[in-house]
């Protein structure tokens, strides 16, 4: 075994093998752009607050249907 082969063997034993997932996780803090780009591409999800707001609007318009025309006039 040559010195180079021995050195490679020592290095292999000293540094545990790294999985691709672990590599991605380790790289993620330095490579935030892919996450930002992904976040920008995905449409905003309906949050529970927005759903509650939409439900409140629907209820209000059912209770006061005359408000619908005034809102529609301003849309």
């Amino acid at each position, binding site marked *: 075994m040559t010195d180079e082969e021995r050195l490679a063997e020592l290095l292999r034993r000293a540094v545990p093998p790294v999985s691709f997932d672990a590599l991605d996780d380790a790289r993620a803090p330095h490579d935030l752009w892919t996450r930002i780009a992904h976040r920008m591409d995905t*449409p*905003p999800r309906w949050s529970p607050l927005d759903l509650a*707001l*939409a439900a409140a609007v629907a209820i*209000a318009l059912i209770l006061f249907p005359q*408000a619908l025309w*005034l809102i529609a*006039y*301003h*849309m």
Partner: protein
Amino acid sequence: MQSHPYLRAYMAGTLVPTVFLLVLLTVYTLYGFRLYLEVPSQFVLAMPARPLARALVFPMAIVPNLWGAWNVLHLKLRSRLQVPLGAFGAVLPIMLFPGGIMLGRLLDVFSIQWWLAIPIIPIGMAVYYLAWKYIVGFLNQEMGIA
């Protein structure tokens, strides 16, 4: 497509009320009333043409332009203000509703007491919040200015 971001913001903003007006008029014409166009007698469709023309001034000319200008303003100020698009859009009815009601009175389109109109403004703000967050936000994204 990186040039003229304000023009794109304006176009994205005007699209929603423009399309909505078309839908509203279609529903109005089909189900609401029959229009009476004051021209040949065969065109008997429920609302006299003159009030209809006056009624259309606000939703057709002012609202879409204001939406476009508001979207441009958000694009211009967003780096400084850091206000989400939905919240920014929800502020618009505070100015728009009093203006629309006053113009409606002025043009004799409709009349509503302020004490009846003011409680409707929060409902309008909620509708605007959702429309701006999800529809205008989507259009801005499509135009590359999100």
